[in-house]
């Protein structure tokens, strides 16, 4: 079983290393976001002590999220290239394939997150060593969760064009209602339920909490910094956010595995060439 999963991981890493465009886009997009949002936030974040760290941790988490989503989307490419057929006739359990794919998304997104991490380092991003070490598994957790979500969406939509549309529809609100770029404190109250249901909100909060060394701050201060949330008298602490991300990750991978196991994929384009 581990052999199958490792083989899938290896394949994804080889493909990432050959996909220069994907690596370039990661660097380009995050540099762009860092640049643009640093102007916007300079004024509006005046009440936040470390605006650069605040912003960079947001961009890192966004990169991890996008990378995981994009990586899970590769499965659609496998369907159109025909490679999915090779996977489906192989004597391996479907859950292993799903698990391998999602773990790969986690790993690939950590790799891309680290690229931004180092980009941020040049701009003055200075997490201490211990924090930096903890942030890697955290990135992995976030990558895993959104990889699972992406895989689930991919198995539901099955065609590349529809998935692209869905990615836009899903990822845009997730992004802008997460506090990664626009601080949640600035959002109108009626959006808060959606913000709090957004897994990316919690991923961002936990990551930021770590990146900005806010462990010792009181809850009221955490809320003011947008890494803890108070909703109808209930307080969501960063620790609870971490658990929420994990829970959503497990939820999505279960759904994806279920979907993957039951799918006979025979109505997927490549099998659909008709009744021969």
């Amino acid at each position: 079983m581990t052999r199958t999963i490792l083989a899938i991981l290896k394949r994804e890493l080889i493909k990432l290393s050959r996909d220069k465009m994907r690596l370039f886009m990661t660097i380009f997009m995050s540099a762009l976001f860092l640049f643009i949002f640093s102007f916007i936030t300079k004024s509006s974040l005046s009440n936040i002590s470390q605006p650069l760290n605040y912003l960079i941790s947001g961009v890192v988490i966004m990169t991890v999220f996008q990378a995981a989503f994009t990586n899970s989307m590769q499965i659609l490419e496998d369907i159109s290239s025909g490679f999915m057929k090779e996977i489906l006739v192989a004597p391996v359990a479907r859950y292993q394939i799903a698990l391998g794919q999602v773990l790969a998304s986690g790993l690939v997104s950590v790799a891309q997150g680290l690229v931004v991490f180092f980009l941020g380092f040049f701009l003055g991003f200075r997490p201490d060593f211990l924090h930096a070490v903890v942030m890697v598994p955290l990135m992995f957790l976030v990558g895993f969760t959104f990889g699972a979500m992406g895989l689930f969406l991919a198995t539901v939509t099955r065609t590349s064009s529809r998935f692209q549309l869905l990615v836009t529809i899903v990822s845009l609100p997730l992004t802008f209602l997460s506090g990664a770029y626009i601080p949640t404190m600035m959002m109108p109250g009626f959006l808060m339920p959606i913000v709090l249901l957004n897994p990316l909100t919690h991923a961002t909060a936990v990551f930021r909490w770590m990146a900005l060394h806010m462990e010792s701050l009181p809850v009221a201060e955490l809320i003011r910094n947008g890494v803890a949330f108070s909703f109808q008298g209930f307080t969501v602490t960063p620790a609870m956010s971490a658990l929420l991300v994990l829970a959503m990750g497990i939820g999505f991978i279960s759904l994806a595995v279920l979907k993957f196991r039951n799918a006979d994929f025979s109505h997927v384009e490549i099998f659909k060439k008709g009744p021969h």
Partner: protein
Amino acid sequence: MPRENAIEVQNFTKKFGNFTAVDNISFAVERGSRFAFLGPNGAGKSTTINTLCTVQEKTQGDLLIHGHDVSRQQDQVRRDIGIVFQESTLDPKLTVEENLRLHCDFYRVPRSEVQNRIGFVLELVDLLQWRKAPVGSLSGGLKRRAEIARGLVHFPKVLFLDEPTTGLDPQTRASVWDYIQRLQQEKDITLFLTTHYMEEAEICNQVAIIDHGRIVAHDSPANLKHDYTQTTVHLDVREPDGVRNYLSHAGISYVEEQGHFSFKAQQVTESVALISEFKDSIQDLNIQKGTLNDVFLSITGKEIRV
């Protein structure tokens, strides 16, 4: 002692909605033999292969591969078979070798053997010098060979080839086919192929002709030709009168055109007798055996549409 069967199919039916793609077919394939499904597009060939390969669920019937049920014992079946699909199913971004390695991982080929086996199959299909090339950069013929190599690297007991040479130029087709025969002899595996090329069906031990989801004939190529076609004899003679009399006497219907006779020979002896009788008068002689195409034509009343 008869050999056991590699594939057994009993009363297999597959429906897509109201359309019956395969209609209650039964057949068996002996271990180590070559078996061809011959028929036009849409006859039910790929549906049968997809069901045997566990990628499609049957509607009805029993399908066994080496004694394992394709619906209930998918894992055992998948381990025993190799498949070369009609279209490419390689990962275009990986190299030939990486594709094969991945396949070995999926099929749990012992790690210590992986390297040797990859070398062995790549040599078999003459692809050693391409092992480091990304599959996406290969030509159609090279891809097909890589695909065949991959289908073999786990040493399957049964190899399915769904139109293995479609879309290839005649030369590549011949060489791909050469490789297939070589490996079959070397590894003693059972070959199951679908094709609409007569030459490919010709070299199989058994041919099943399938049309509209039904098997309309199933036998060795020689027997099929014997049963469904007649040998045509073409004769050019200097003195047509004698031949004309001879044929009329023997009750053989013929066509004559300026000293050129053609007639269907029921028995070989008939034509031999005729030829020796008129050997001094014969200017030209052409004996045409029936082909599988004639068999198909005579059974279904139409040519195979390519």
